[in-house]
C-alpha cells in the first residue's frame, strides 16, 4: 500500500515538475547560447544546424523560421537599457549605430510575433529609409504619439519587442561584446 502510494506520488510530482519546467523554459525565452549586447540578445546559432534543443522546441512551438546564418542575424529587445520592460504607452528613444551589415531592418512586434496595427501603417524601418545624423548615427522615437524625425508607432500596446535584423553581416558567433558590435541604446522617456 505504501509502495503504491509512493509510486503514484512520485509520478505525479515528476510529471508536474517536468512539464512545468518545459513550459517555463519555452514560454519565458530562456534559450541558451545567446549573445547579449546592451538591451539586445541574439542567437546566431539558431540559424545553423547547431541550434540547441530548447531553441528548436521554441521555434517549433512559435512557428517561426529563424534567420539562416548565411543570411543574417536577428537581435531581440523586450526591455530598455535599464531593464524596464518596453511599454507601448511610453516614448522610447533608440539611438546610436548598428554593427556592420549591408542592410538592416528594425521591426516592432507584439510578444507573439505579430505586427502591431497603427494609424501610420509603419511597422519598422530599413537602413535605407532612416534619416541619419551628420555623423551617421540615428535616433528613432518609438512611442504611441506621432513625432518628428524617425517615428516608430507602438499603437499603444502594453508590451512589445523590437527586432533588429542585420543582413549580410560578418557579425556572428565569434562576437561577444559591444566593441565588436555596437548596438543602439534604448532609453525610456515620458509615458502617456
Amino acid at each position, binding site marked *: 500500500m505504501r509502495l503504491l502510494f*509512493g509510486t503514484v*506520488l*512520485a*509520478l505525479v*510530482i*515528476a*510529471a*508536474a*515538475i*517536468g*512539464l512545468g*519546467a*518545459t513550459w517555463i*523554459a*519555452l514560454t519565458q525565452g530562456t534559450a541558451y547560447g545567446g549573445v547579449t549586447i546592451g538591451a539586445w540578445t541574439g542567437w546566431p546559432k*539558431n*540559424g*545553423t*544546424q547547431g*541550434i540547441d*534543443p*530548447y531553441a*528548436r*522546441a521554441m*521555434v*517549433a*512551438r*512559435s*512557428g*517561426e*523560421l*529563424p*534567420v*539562416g*546564418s*548565411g*543570411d*543574417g542575424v536577428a537581435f531581440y529587445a523586450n526591455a530598455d537599457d535599464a531593464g524596464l520592460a518596453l511599454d507601448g504607452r511610453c516614448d522610447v528613444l533608440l539611438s546610436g549605430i548598428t554593427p556592420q551589415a*549591408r*542592410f538592416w*531592418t528594425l*521591426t516592432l*512586434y507584439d510578444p*507573439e*510575433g*505579430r*505586427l*502591431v*496595427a497603427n494609424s501610420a501603417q509603419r*511597422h*519598422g524601418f*530599413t*537602413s*535605407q*529609409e532612416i534619416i541619419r545624423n551628420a555623423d551617421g548615427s540615428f535616433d528613432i522615437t518609438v512611442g504611441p504619439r506621432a513625432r518628428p524625425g524617425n517615428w516608430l508607432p507602438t499603437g499603444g500596446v502594453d508590451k512589445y519587442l523590437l*527586432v533588429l*535584423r542585420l*543582413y*549580410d553581416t560578418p557579425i556572428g558567433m565569434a562576437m561577444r561584446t559591444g566593441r565588436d558590435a555596437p548596438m543602439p541604446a534604448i532609453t525610456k522617456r515620458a509615458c502617456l
Partner: protein
Amino acid sequence: MIRLALWLLGALLLAGIVHLATVLILPRMATQDAYARVSAIAPVNAVVPIPTPTPEKAVLPFMDPAFEVSICRYDLSRGPLKFSVPISQAYTSVSFYTRSDIAYYAINDRAAGRRVIELDLMTAAQRAELPENEDITAADRLIVASPTTTGLIVIRALAPETGWIPAVRSALASAQCRPQ
C-alpha cells in the same frame, strides 16, 4: 523520513527525464510549426509567394515586413530539384530549412556572385549517386545536400523602400523550383 526523501529524490530524477524528453519530442509533435503553416498554402515543388505580413494576418510569426518572400516546399523523394531565382536590386537571399525548420544552408546574392542564384538540391544519397566523371565541375554547379527528404526553400528579397516592391515581386515571380 528517509523513505520519503528517497521517494522525492526519485520523483525529481524522473521530473528531469520528463522535462528533457518533452523538450526533445516537442519539435516532432508540433502541429503549428512553420512547415505545417506553409503546407497549408503551398503545393509541393513549386514556388509560392507568401503574403506580406499585416497586423491582422501573417502566415508565420516574426516575418520581416521589409521583405518579399516566396517559398518552395520541396520533396526530393522522386529525385533532385533544380532551383533558380534572379537576384533583385537590393538584397536577395535563399535559405534552406529541414522538415523540422532547422536552417541548414543560406546563400545571398553577393555570395552567389551572379545575376541568378542557381543550384541543385538533393539528398545525400542522391548526391552520392551522381556520376563523378561528368564534364560539369563543382564550380559551375552549386549542389546543396538536404539532410531531410522534405523541407523548405525560402527566398527573401528586400524592398528597402515601398517603391521597390513591384520590381522585387516580379524578380521573385520568375523563381523556379522543379524536379530535374
